[in-house]
């Protein structure tokens, strides 16, 4: 079968090339169907309980997607006539943002006050001409003492303010809607800065975050993918010194990526932050196949074979190993299907498809191209073979030292795994190159954090929120929240009612308290609602029959587990103080806080499945269950060490990293497969002793292993440059795991094998049996 394959390819190379290109072309045309989904909700599956809770809350109250203009006057004081005029005009402009339903700023804040028996409701800043210093002082005092505004819309020192635009995206075509809002908002920002050069504006909010997902990935696409191509060309060009080989490899890579992404389009995938890293990963993984084929081919040609025979021999030798490594890599990536987060399932599936396609192209169009194109072979010094021999000698001589030392190092590194803390802070999904991150960091330092939790307190009775008991509960809860150090802001209807009660009693401060009867509250709210303008109503705080109200709490930046603690405390508060009300807590912050945990659990199951499956595959491939079991160690140790080092260095594990074990498993297995199969081949077929077998394995695959590892590490290091931190961390940790895997295979595995064989020999000598099936040669690449 192996001979037949190249027999056909070698006879009809042009046909093979044409058919492959035609296939790739048809498949790739699906890529135009691929669109990027700008929505943080894509990270959550439909059955995610936090998402479900949040969506049902959004249906009861109004939606809360938003854009924040963070306005920073350079003179550090918002309360001047010019700055207030500018804010007023920005507020008006903000109504032009597509899908806007509400605009909140200090200028349009509905200020209520009493004048004898009159109740006056008006914009806090009505006219900006002829404002005296005492007017400005009064406005400032009102603003920074208003619980609805301070630390949310205005900083407590009055140096920064926010114009917050609530948008209600129809959700019919998020691919168009989000950029539409972003474009409009940026135009408004630009116009504002042109007109007010003494002011700085930052853009934050959910819509800007959603936009950043797309934009960060796009800019990655335009920088990382070319960089990756450069790495591939340089690596193959320098290490293998072949122009034809480089060209053919690049073609295989392009076809693998284009076909995969095209199929993704046809199959109805959409792109997201994580899945947009699929091309970089496929490229990295596809290179390995080509390197193995090229290495063997050149080896044959240097030893006098003509090109066609060399290619045929290379395909024959490599077909099974690269098929096996492709399958194990695909299985590793497919384990991502266990992830709770759909973009990672997509990423896993796309890369798995890509890896298998790369295999197909590597054994069809790649040899066909090599057949057709001219190839020169220069006699090359086998320098690296010498160095491999040196390395083998070193490992064999120092085995008694290496085994304990590496074991201790591995255990020491793994001991730091508990240093890792689960954390999904969506702001930190972007690095400081992304404007959204800069804006949000600025907001955190100067105004309020981005952690928001919405709390719906439900009575189940129409008009139930007007009950004084209910209002007291909500007010007490809000006070309790405000007393917590992590709280920046609490938006609650009870503040409005207290203010109205004061207004209705001639602005007497002693009446700043909740009304004491249901009727009083109901009638105040009726009065207030009738006096509010379009877009500033209470429908975002009260449900339609006034049976429940929504409190919105904003917290300082904190880790997922801290936020989950706050959530637990809030639930406990209600259980203890007001068990009669049912309470829903929901928000994107909570969704992200829980996703890491959910994902880790599901990924552990997935990884276990992949591990079992890969071990079975290895057992078959090595024709030995014992070596299949031994291989578990070098397969798992790299991830353990990498996570240990990560625990020392960074310590924050989120959604992106929870998939790394499954992902790297399939890749690091390749090294083990190659090394063990050569080792066993030597022992079984050449009757070599353990030392000779180790020498043989180093000599045969040592070079190929470090070349492929170099490419893989380089590839994932390129991914680590992504401004989308989720991808960057994933790339970095993967690169580290793969590098450690090579070190483990070179320094830890051989001493381990020798130690095991030694104890086995002792046993078999005493029992006089052999546990080995000597007849195996399935994976037998590299016989010379």
């Amino acid at each position, binding site marked *: 079968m192996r001979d037949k394959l190249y027999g056909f390819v070698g006879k009809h190379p042009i046909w093979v090339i044409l058919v492959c290109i035609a296939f790739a072309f048809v498949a790739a045309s699906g890529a135009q169907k691929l669109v990027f989904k700008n929505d943080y909700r894509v990270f959550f599956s439909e059955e995610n309980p936090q998402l479900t809770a949040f969506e049902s809350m959004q249906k009861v109250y109004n939606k809360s997607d938003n854009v924040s203009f963070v306005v920073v006057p350079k003179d550090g004081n918002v309360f001047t006539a010019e700055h207030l005029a500018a804010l007023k005009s920005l507020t008006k402009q903000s109504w032009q943002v597509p899908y806007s339903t509400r605009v909140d700023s200090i200028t349009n804040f509905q200020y209520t006050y009493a004048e004898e028996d*009159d109740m006056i409701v008006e914009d806090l800043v009505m006219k900006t001409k002829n404002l005296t210093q005492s007017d400005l002082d009064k406005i400032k005092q009102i603003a920074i003492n208003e619980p609805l505004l301070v630390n949310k819309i205005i900083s407590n020192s009055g140096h920064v303010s926010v114009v917050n635009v609530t948008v209600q995206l129809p959700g019919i075509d998020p691919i168009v809607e989000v950029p539409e809002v972003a474009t409009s908002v940026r135009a408004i920002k630009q116009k504002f800065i042109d007109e007010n050069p003494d002011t700085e504006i930052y853009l934050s909010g959910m819509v800007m975050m959603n936009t950043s997902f797309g934009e960060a990935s796009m800019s990655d696409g335009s920088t990382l993918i070319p960089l990756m191509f450069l790495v591939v060309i340089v690596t193959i060009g320098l290490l293998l010194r072949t122009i034809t080989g480089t060209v053919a490899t690049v073609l295989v890579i392009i076809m693998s990526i284009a076909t995969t992404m095209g199929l993704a389009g046809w199959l109805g995938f959409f792109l997201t932050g994580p899945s947009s890293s699929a091309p970089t990963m496929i490229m990295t993984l596809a290179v390995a196949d080509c390197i193995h084929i090229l290495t063997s081919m050149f080896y044959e040609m240097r030893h006098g074979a003509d090109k066609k025979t060399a290619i045929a021999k290379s395909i024959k030798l490599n077909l099974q190993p690269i098929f096996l490594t492709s399958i194990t890599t695909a299985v590793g990536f497919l384990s991502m299907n266990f992830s709770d987060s759909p973009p990672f399932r997509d990423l896993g599936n796309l890369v798995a498809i890509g890896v298998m396609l790369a295999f197909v192209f590597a054994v069809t169009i790649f040899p066909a191209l090599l057949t057709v194109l001219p190839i020169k072979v220069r006699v090359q010094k086998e320098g690296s073979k010498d160095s491999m021999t040196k390395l083998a000698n070193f490992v064999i001589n120092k085995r008694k030292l290496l085994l304990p030392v590496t074991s201790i190092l591995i255990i020491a590194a793994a001991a730091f795994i508990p240093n890792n803390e689960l954390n999904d802070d969506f702001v930190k999904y972007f690095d400081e190159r992304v404007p959204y991150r800069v804006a949000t960091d600025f907001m955190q330092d100067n105004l309020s954090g981005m952690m928001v939790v919405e709390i719906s307190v439900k009575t189940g009775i129409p008009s139930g929120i007007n009950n004084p008991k209910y209002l007291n509960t909500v007010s007490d809860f809000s006070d309790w929240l405000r007393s917590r150090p992590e709280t920046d802001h609490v938006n609650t209807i009870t503040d409005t009612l207290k203010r109205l009660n004061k207004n209705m009693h001639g602005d007497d401060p002693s009446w700043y308290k909740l009304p004491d009867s249901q009727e009083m509250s109901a009638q105040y709210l009726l009065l207030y609602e009738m006096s509010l303008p379009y877009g500033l109503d209470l429908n975002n705080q009260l449900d339609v029959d006034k049976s429940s109200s929504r409190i919105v709490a904003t917290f300082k930046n904190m880790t997922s587990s801290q936020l989950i603690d706050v959530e637990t405390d809030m639930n406990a508060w209600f259980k203890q103080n007001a068990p009669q009300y049912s309470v829903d807590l929901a928000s994107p912050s909570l969704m992200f806080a829980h996703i890491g945990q959910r994902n880790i659990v599901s990924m552990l199951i997935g990884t276990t499945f992949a591990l079992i499956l890969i071990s079975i595959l290895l057992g078959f491939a090595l024709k030995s269950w014992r070596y299949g079991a031994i291989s578990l160690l070098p397969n798992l140790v790299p991830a353990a060490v990498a996570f240990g080092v990560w625990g020392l260095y960074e310590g924050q594990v989120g959604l992106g990293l929870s998939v790394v074990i499954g992902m790297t498993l399939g890749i690091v297995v390749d090294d083990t497969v190659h090394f063990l199969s050569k080792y066993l081949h030597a022992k079984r077929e050449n009757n070599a002793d353990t030392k000779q077998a180790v020498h043989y394995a180093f000599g045969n695959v040592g070079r190929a292993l470090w070349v492929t590892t170099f490419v893989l590490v380089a590839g994932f290091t390129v991914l680590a440059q992504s401004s989308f931190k989720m991808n960057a961390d994933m790339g970095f940790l993967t690169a580290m795991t793969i590098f450690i895997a090579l070190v483990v295979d070179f320094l830890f595995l051989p001493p381990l094998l020798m130690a095991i064989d030694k104890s086995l020999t002792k046993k078999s000598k005493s029992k006089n049996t052999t546990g080995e099936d000597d007849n195996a040669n399935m994976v037998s690449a590299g016989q010379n």
Partner: protein
Amino acid sequence: MLKKKMLISTLSAVALALMSNMSFALTPEQQGLEISKEAKQRDLGWVDSTADMLMLLRNKQGQESIREIKIKSLEIDDDGDKSLTIFNKPKDVKGTAFLSFSHPVDADDQWLYLPALKRVKRISSRNKSGPFMGSEFAFEDLSSFEIKKYSYKYLGDEKVNNLESFKVEQYPVDENSGYTKRIVWLDKNEYRVQKIEFYDRKSALLKTLTYVDYKQYLGKYWRANSQNMLNHQNGKSTELKWNNYAFKTGLKAGDFNRNSLKRVR
């Protein structure tokens, strides 16, 4: 007096019908104004009215809520009407009464009687664009139609609710209005509003109001038994059901002042 009014309206209807056949004579702006004037003209002379209104609020989640209101109105020549709104349901606002002297352009005069406080409060606010009792109707959607509130543009003819209708764009004069424009369909036979589309500040379609089941009172005045408002942006809707319409009930100006507020029920 009444006959004279009818004669004028008939004549002007004939004139308008003639004019719409020679539309080259009028700009669309003038045509829009003429149609609106005619509609207003046909509804003059009802003197006073009372009616019960039932509001049915629905949100996206399917939750429903009911409000019950009684409305008394007094027709005022050359100014907005005076109206008295008495709240019945929800129970906790029962007896609350709202008095409004609407003005076409200036801010309305408004007073509210709160039974829980036993006080009448004058409300000074230019805002008429917020949701009325949490519904999808703004107060400005419920107040009387006055020619001076809008400028106009006739857009053409269209069939709505199976009736040949004029399609007229209206631009609010009041800068505090929540709308940039309304598109109103009036049927050609009776000049009754059949449908209104409301466009928000960024000129995006916000709401659609449809009038259902018109009934004629005193052989002249048409009132819809039911009005449906659908908010396209948030998916919420509100239905108004009108009952017990009565006209010329003998209400006086004295029934519409701040002292009368406490007495109403």
